[in-house]
């Protein structure tokens, strides 16, 4: 039995777990080598307040990973995304994006339920049913036109909704900006995704790596212009990405928290208050 055959029998989860063990080790090594951010002197209260607000005690290490990711992005992901944009027509790219998004609906539904958001769970269920059938395995997003809009969610947001704080900023290898809460959420989302577990080891591995690769291409292609713009206009791109990531997550958490649409069906007489309008996104 050769080595290739042996590794192909290992489920994707195990490969990811191994990769993560490696990155964890690399991360610890980087912390030891680069140290932590030094707190400003206590006689400068403004600087101390800013240091606390930035909440990035591992900044030197994070910056190392930012540089590594940036290098990998420049030589691999960015050119690949540019080629993807150049070769694949816009409509086909949208179709691929829709299929990927449809594959994510089981995880999304599970999170909607755990967040205690019945209307979001309803949207997700209807999206899955409509787009998987009428939308031809998810290629066409018919559900949005029919009044079931998409929303971003993940286990990091579920934890946030349960009141778990985000913790210090982390810049993770390959995954990019994060924090302990969202990193845990990323792992849980892989574990609770049914596609991680169904099928025999071989097809599962091919399917999941293809999906992972396409997801990376798809999201990088979507961010080609904004990332370019940020790198061009920011004096400290690392700090800018850190700020944007935090604000974006805060925005998602707030949208999730404020989404308290009534569960009464539209045809049933209902009292609509200003605080609880029927939301359309």
């Amino acid at each position, binding site marked *: 039995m050769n080595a290739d055959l042996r590794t192909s029998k290992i489920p994707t989860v195990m490969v990811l777990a191994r990769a993560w063990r490696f990155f964890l080790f690399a991360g610890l090594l980087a912390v030891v080598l680069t140290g932590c951010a030094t707190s400003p002197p206590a006689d400068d209260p403004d600087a101390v307040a800013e240091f606390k607000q930035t909440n990035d005690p591992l900044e030197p290490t994070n910056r190392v990973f930012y540089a590594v990711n940036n290098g990998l992005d420049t030589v691999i992901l960015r050119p690949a995304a540019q080629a993807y944009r150049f070769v694949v027509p816009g409509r086909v790219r949208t179709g691929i994006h829709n299929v990927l998004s449809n594959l994510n609906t089981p995880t999304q539904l599970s999170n909607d339920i755990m967040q205690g958001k019945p209307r979001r769970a309803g949207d997700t269920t209807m999206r899955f049913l409509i787009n998987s059938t009428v939308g031809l395995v998810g290629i066409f997003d018919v559900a949005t036109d029919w009044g079931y809009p998409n929303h971003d969610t993940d286990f990091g947001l579920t934890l946030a909704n349960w009141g778990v704080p985000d913790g210090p900023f982390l810049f993770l290898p390959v995954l990019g900006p994060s924090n302990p809460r969202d990193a845990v959420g990323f792992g849980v989302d892989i574990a609770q995704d049914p596609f991680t577990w169904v099928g025999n080891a071989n097809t599962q591995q091919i399917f999941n790596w293809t999906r992972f690769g396409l997801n990376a291409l798809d999201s990088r292609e979507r961010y080609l212009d904004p990332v370019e713009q940020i790198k061009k206009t920011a*004096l400290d791109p690392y700090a800018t990405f850190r700020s944007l990531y935090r604000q974006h997550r805060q925005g998602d958490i707030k949208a999730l928290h404020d989404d308290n649409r009534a569960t009464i069906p539209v045809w049933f007489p209902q009292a609509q208050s200003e605080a609880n309008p029927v939301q359309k996104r």
Partner: protein
Amino acid sequence: MFERRMFLLAGLSAMPLLAAAPALADTNGDRAAAFIKTTSDLILGAMRGAGSAEERRRILGPIIDKSLDVDGLAKFCLGRFWRTATPDQQQRYTAVFHQVLIGNITSKLGEYQDVRLTIGRSKQQDDVDLVSSSVERPNNPPTTVDWVVADAAGNPKVIDVVAEGTSLRLTQRQDYASYLTHNNNDVDKLIDAMRQQLTQ
């Protein structure tokens, strides 16, 4: 029977009043929304007409000066370093900030040729008005952009733009703060770096 008809009539006659009520209650918000509408129409119109980046810059400059609180933004973005900066530094910084801002907006708008902006509802929060809008571009999902409008001496001015929950001025402030922390809190170095950006 008669009573019921009277009731209906009374109800019908009250309807126009009800319809007018929200408009009366939120005149400030409406004014802010109208201001964003005029300004965005002006900017998008100018972008369609202009050819080169230089031309866009020339046309957009006056519009930005009129509709954006540039000095206020400059001060906000320097954050705690504004107080420690000398008046001379403040002045040089504000001048270069002005140019950087116009440059950034022009190059940013250059990507948005076929953009459509739909103004949504507006609401008052503390002493500012928030005007929400939806920006649509071909092949892209619509993005939510909120405009924060403040009253500066009787004239409405944009003091912040919040795209998908990310505030433009806060991001800029944190960028400058980080740069300054890594450069001995030296405002002159920041000004040099910003000048450098202009020449690129």
